[in-house]
């Protein structure tokens, strides 16, 4: 009997080709599209919007495999959207893709796959697996391991990334060769549940239920304490941001840190956003956790070139990360991901990142 694999299909080219490759490799492939957004909010081209579901269904029709939808909108709301809004409202910069992978795609969906008798869950992520180890994608430009660090050894044994060894160009070629109608579909780059890239508008629309001062105006000061202007609410800013400060200055100014207690935004020159060290909490390791301090290359945002650093456990279970050379603008709420060469060792959430 063929091994059954669940292919998570967004309706995009990567997950479509991933499913096709699994069919070619002889698996019994079951396509699933997760409905992540409540009905009223779908329709602007994100995961699980009606047109994406249609695309995924048609790809499955073409591959001759079953396709189902799985409504995970409540889970997505509680584990991804709500924490996202809360993070902005507490002056942190959230990383919803990490949370979605952790709780939804490789959390609940993995469980559902098991209940459906599927040996693995496959996605269209650009990442590779080798002997249960998580490695960067062959196409470093597309590498998505930054968003996958929370996968544990147990989960890694039950996932598959069929396109991780291909370049995006190869994936599109493969899609065309297979006659997939999604071959030239545009890439989704934005936060899937925020309409029109309007993060502030989205946070405001959700803020009522949370209640926060992070939407109130306050003072902008520079690092010497001088008032430089007025900010529109800390929820609109992230560390390292330059645009939209509304402060005139001969030299460019950047957000250096957010101080929610005083509702102040602190700005400074370009050199002031570099930090030597950060503290990382909520750690997750792809293999066994390190026993003590160790070296690693650390990414503090997607596409950030990994920087050499010393990781050291702290008494409270968090880790300190001391960079060999200062790194630009790590933001609390974002992930810090640890690598050794191509391998992802693990990562966590940046707790403090402000200038030190």
């Amino acid at each position, binding site marked *: 009997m063929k091994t059954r694999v669940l292919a998570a299909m967004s309706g995009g080219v990567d997950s479509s080709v991933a499913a096709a490759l699994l069919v070619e490799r002889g698996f019994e492939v079951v396509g699933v599209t997760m409905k992540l957004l409540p009905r009223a909010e779908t329709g602007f081209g994100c995961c699980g919007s009606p047109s994406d579901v249609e695309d995924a269904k048609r790809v499955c029709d073409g591959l001759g495999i079953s396709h189902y939808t*799985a409504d995970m909108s409540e889970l997505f709301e509680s584990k991804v959207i709500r924490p996202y809004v809360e993070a902005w409202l507490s002056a942190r910069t959230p990383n919803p893709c990490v949370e979605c992978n952790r709780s939804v795609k490789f959390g609940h969906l993995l469980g559902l796959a098991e209940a459906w*008798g599927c040996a693995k869950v496959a996605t269209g992520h650009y990442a590779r697996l080798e002997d249960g180890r998580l490695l960067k994608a062959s196409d470093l430009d597309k590498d998505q391991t930054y968003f996958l660090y929370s996968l544990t050894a147990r989960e890694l044994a039950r996932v598959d990334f069929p396109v991780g060894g291909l370049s995006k160009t190869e994936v599109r070629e493969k899609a065309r060769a297979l006659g997939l109608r999604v071959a030239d579909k545009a890439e989704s780059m934005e936060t899937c549940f925020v309409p029109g890239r309007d993060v502030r508008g989205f946070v405001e629309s959700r803020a009522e239920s949370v209640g926060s001062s992070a939407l109130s105006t306050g003072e902008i000061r520079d690092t010497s304490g001088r008032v430089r202007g007025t900010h529109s609410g800390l929820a609109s800013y992230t560390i390292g941001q330059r645009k939209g400060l509304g402060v005139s200055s001969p030299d460019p100014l950047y957000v250096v840190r957010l101080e929610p207690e005083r509702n102040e935004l602190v700005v400074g020159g370009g050199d002031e956003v570099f930090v030597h060290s950060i503290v990382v909490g909520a750690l997750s390791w792809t293999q066994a956790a390190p026993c003590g301090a160790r070296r690693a290359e650390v990414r503090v945002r997607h596409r950030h070139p990994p920087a050499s650093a010393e990781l050291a456990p702290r008494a409270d279970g968090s880790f300190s990360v001391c960079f060999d050379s200062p790194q630009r603008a790590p933001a609390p709420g974002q992930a810090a991901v640890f690598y050794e060469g191509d391998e992802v060792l693990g990562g966590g959430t940046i707790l403090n990142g402000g200038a030190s």
Partner: protein
Amino acid sequence: MTYLDHNATTPVRPEVVDAMLPWLREGFGNPSSVYSLGQKARAALERAREQVSGLIGASDPSEIVFTSCGSEADVLAIAGGAWQGHDESKGKRRKVVTSAIEHDAILLLGPQLRRRGFEVLEAGCGPDGVVAAAGMAALVDASTAVVSLMHANNETGVLQPAAEMMAAARAHGALAHVDAVQSLGKLSLDVESLGADLLSLSGHKVNAPKGVGALYVRRGVRLSPLVTGHQEKNRRGGTENLASIVGLGLACELAGRELSGASAHSLALRQKIEAGVLVLPGARLNGHPQQRLPNTAHFSFEGLDGHHLVVALDLEGICVSSGPACSSGASTPSHVLTAMGVDSKLATGSLRVSVGWGTTDADVDRFLAVLPKAVERLRALPAAL
């Protein structure tokens, strides 16, 4: 494959397919044509009309109007009846009374009628899924154009007080419509004892193909047509879907001939299903325990999503549904279970099993063998929140 979703659709019987084929091949004539090719087609059409009228006790075959489906029959009855009643009463009749557990074809017509100035009232149902006849009858008055109630609910299979409601309708001079799509071929149906002016039925629920339905229209009852044209005595235009109509005719004849045996067979299978399912922990039966179609069992399982259960069973080659086929995909509780006051978590964990022509003991055994493990595996999932 084990098919246990006969309320969604049914297999077309081979003898029905055989009866249809000549009308797709050499007998392709238009029933309205003068020459003999057309006359033969017309004769086949009229024969089918007789077969359909025979199954529902219509006094004259001309009371059968063929439509494209059950939904069209429902809308022709209610919208066509409401417009006609409104006009004939010079605007006095502008109310439609129906129930909250009707098929979507009817529920989604409500807003359309309201936008055109009609008042549309939906009677609720009890926890057993039965619409309270007295409460619904109280909504009917001299301003009512149409009263519509389903004969049996498509999800739960629960039988409704259709005859009582038809009497209430006629007492106030309103048109009395029964949606019998789900009960045709499963129960004996008689338009006279029901007291119906209008009764809808559908081909694909009785082992005829999809794309054909019919509306019984009592002689003397006038409707505003939805599709204008001279066919079907000006009640439904469009060249007749002859092959499918022939199929519907034969399917009705077969259903009538085999009704008592088929009902007993279905009931025995249903009882076996219920006995096997209800021993599982956290399983319960929805709807009135007795007053139900012989072929339909509707369950709720605590702590799981019925849609996920349907997928799990499909992956084992078993076809069942968690709600009406028309709304599959979203894990939202059905309007019927909501109207019954079933807790939304339990309603989400629902499963409908419906047997029919061709269902065997072995099908039921296989379902009962696979179900417990699927339920157990899904229950082991951490709660989604």
